[in-house]
Structures are given as structure tokens and as C-alpha cells.
């Protein structure tokens, strides 16, 4: 899903490859990109399930406004994955509901 070549932006710049663990699965990421970008590149579209009806939610605004892309990151809930950059070894989990108190 990466756009390697682009008619205006040119070749995708080199970036250090790092790895995340997303719900136990290893996902490759480019250093410096938001978590949501790495997930989208890996074809992962569901970020969380709502509290009342357990409905799936994914990226909606991609600029930190709406919180639909919130996930549990390194044990902390409600992290907006569209504005939070990846880090090597980061553990990302699909969030169910609003998160437990221990995750806040």
C-alpha cells in the first residue's frame, strides 16, 4: 500500500525500518511516520471498537481531531495513532471501549 513512486513527490525517501507489534503481529514501519500510517500500509483498517455497540472504527480525519483512530499503545489507551509517531518495538493493541483505568 506504500506509494513508492509519485509523479509530483518523486521516489519515496529512504527511512530506517523499524518494527511494531500490533495485536501480536509484527508490522514494519518507517521511522518518523505516524502509527496509523504503518497500519494502513500493512492493510490494517480497524483501530478500535466502540464502547456501547462494539462497532469497528478506523481512520476518519487523520489529523488528530476526531479520535476515531485511538488505540492502546505500550499499555496506554486512547492514543491518537494518526499524530503519534512509531518507535521501534512499540506494542500496539486494538482498543475495545474507552480503555481500562490501568491503561490511563
Amino acid at each position, binding site marked *: 500500500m506504500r*506509494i513508492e513512486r509519485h509523479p509530483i513527490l518523486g521516489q519515496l525517501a529512504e527511512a530506517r525500518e523499524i518494527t511494531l507489534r500490533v495485536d501480536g503481529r509484527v508490522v514494519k514501519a518507517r521511522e518518523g511516520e505516524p502509527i496509523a500510517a504503518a497500519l494502513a500500509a500493512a492493510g490494517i483498517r*480497524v483501530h478500535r471498537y466502540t464502547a456501547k455497540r462494539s462497532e469497528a*472504527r478506523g481512520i476518519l*480525519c487523520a489529523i488528530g481531531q476526531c479520535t476515531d483512530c485511538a488505540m492502546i499503545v505500550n499499555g*496506554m489507551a486512547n492514543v491518537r495513532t494518526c499524530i503519534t509517531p512509531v518507535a521501534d518495538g512499540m506494542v500496539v493493541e486494538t482498543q475495545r471501549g474507552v480503555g481500562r483505568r490501568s491503561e490511563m
Partner: protein
Amino acid sequence: MSVVDVLVVGAGPAGLAAGIEVAKRGGRVCVVDRNLEPGGQLVKQIHKFFGSREHHAGVRGVDIAAQLLEEARALGVTLRLGWEVFAIRPGHAVDIVQAVADDATGGAGDAPTERFDARSVVLAAGAEENALQFEGWTLAGVMGAGAAQTLINVWRVRPGKRVLMVGAGNVGLIVTYQLLQAGVTVAAIIEAAPRIGGYGVHAAKIRRAGVPILTSHTILRAEGVECVEGAVVAQVDGTWCPIEGTERRFDVDVICVAVGLHPNTRLASLAGCRLVFSPALGGWVPLHNAFLETTVPGIYVAGDAAGIEEASTALEEGRLAGIAAYERLRDVDAEGHAEIAAIQRRLDDLRGGPFCGGIRAAKSALQTTGETPCPAT
């Protein structure tokens, strides 16, 4: 607590321009933005701007952002990136919280906060994309057209394989073209109105690329369990009601919604600024005078947060708000007045184009009488 002359919310074109003008005059200014990368939505504008050379015609938005940032940094504008404002208290005490933690896990829990004592505040928090409610509108894969634009142009990731674009205004048309540039198939653009809202030049490029633009069409539903697997559209009659028997299904995994923007008025509302409803400016907008001051003395608005327009007007409004917010602290000299008048003239020019609709009238009515004219229907 930090003391500043002006605290600016938002590091897009309006906010950076405001910061630059304050710093030029020797003021202490801090620009706060929740994104780690400044520039607001300019960073995803990879097309060349229209207009006059004075307003960066022929330059791509992402390059304008880089120029503004360079100028701001050279002038000593303080940028607080990865932080966001959560309270504006009486007397302009502004509380900010870290939105993205340094160890890249933040935004929740005991995120650090800080207080600023600002003598005035410029709200340049931009716009939010309008939502459209239909069956399946919350499925993963239904996203703002602006979101898709961030994915392809900033993140360099495709949002999916096949897109249905809802809305044929300029955003819908431009993002469609940029999706094609990114190697994504766009099945169609649908538009509920009987005609295309955006510029003919954009629509012509889309049509040449073979993407159908279906006017008088609306979306009935998105199909899928968790993620979008298809979309059903139908033609509408003169009263916007779907016509039975005209349903068409598109095999798409992304539905982009490009049905306009509205000013981000959250902080203005929180600060007690009076809001008025102006259809020409995108909805609720903080009432403001010709110097962009709201009904709360010392709180100014600029850019899309003051009414939906273009990046070029946001830049000019940001300059004006920066000067006004800083100069209110002292006597404005003749030079200051001349500069403000020049900006107001340029804004008037920008709003004088044939495609600006009722914006000039709406702005001018808002700024002189505090009332907004009803659009002719």
C-alpha cells in the same frame, strides 16, 4: 507559567503568519499545534496555487509551508508542537496539554500540562470536515477526503484500492486527481447538486482521466461488516429525494466524504466568544470585527476558524490578526495602520473573484453589523 504577548493556536498558514507578524514587531509569541509537523493542511497541498504572484500562485502548498516555517524560525517564533490548548480562562490564561508524548506513547493518562499568561490570543485552529450520515457511515474506510489526502501525500500510503468520492466541490475534485496520481482507482464522483461545485478546469482533468462525475446522485449506504466493501448510490429528484430504481452499486473499499468544511469553533466557544451562523462562511463562526477581534476582548480569530476560505486568505488574515493582537497592547502608529489597511485591501481583492460567492458580503456584514445575510435561495 510562561508569559507571552500573543499565544497563537494552530501552526497552519494563519497561525504561522500571525506568529511571524508578532515576532517581527519584537513581541514574544508562542504558536501551539497538536501535530508534530507544523504547516497545518498546507503540507498535503501538492498542487500549485491559483491567483496572483503576491499570493503564491504557481507555488505548491507544501512549499509555502516550508517558507513560512523558515521565516517563523528565523524570527524566533516559539513553536510548541505535539501540544494542544484545552482551556482559555478569563484574563487569557491558556492551559496546554501534551498531545504527543516525547516517548511517542502519549496523549493519555497523566500527560503534562502548562499554563501560559498571554496578553492576547489568536485562534487559528482551522476547519473540520463536514460529516455525512448514511447507512454504514461509520465503517472503517469511510473517511474525510482530507484524511485520504493526508494518507497519500504526507504518509505516502494508499487508503485502499478503489474509492468512491462523495462531493464534486474543489476538495472532491482535487483529492480525486491526487488519488489517481497516487495510483488509486476512483470509481466515480457523486454530487447531490445538479451541477459540479468546483472549478471546471479541475473537473475537466478528472473527466479526461476517465472518472465519471454523477451529478444529482447521493449515497444510500456503505456495505460491509467492519470495513467498507461497497457503496450503493442513487439519483435524486428536484427535492433531493432518491429516485426508486436508479440504485447503482460500486465495488469500492474506501468512501471519501468531501461535503464541505466548517470552522473549528471549539476554543472560541469555550472562551465565551459569541458565535453567529453564516452559511457562506461554512456554519457557526465567531463574530469578529474588521481587525478580527471576537466579542471577547483580546481574543482574535484568523483563517478557516474565522470562516471557510482559502489558504491565501488565511495567510492574510493571520498577518492582520497578528498585528492587531500585538498592537492592541500599544498605540498603533501610522505605519501599523497603513499595513493593516494594505492587508484589508488584499483580502478584499482575494474575495472579489468570480467564484467567491457570498464570502465578501458575508464577511463584510459580519464585521460591520454583526449579522449575517441569508443566502438567496
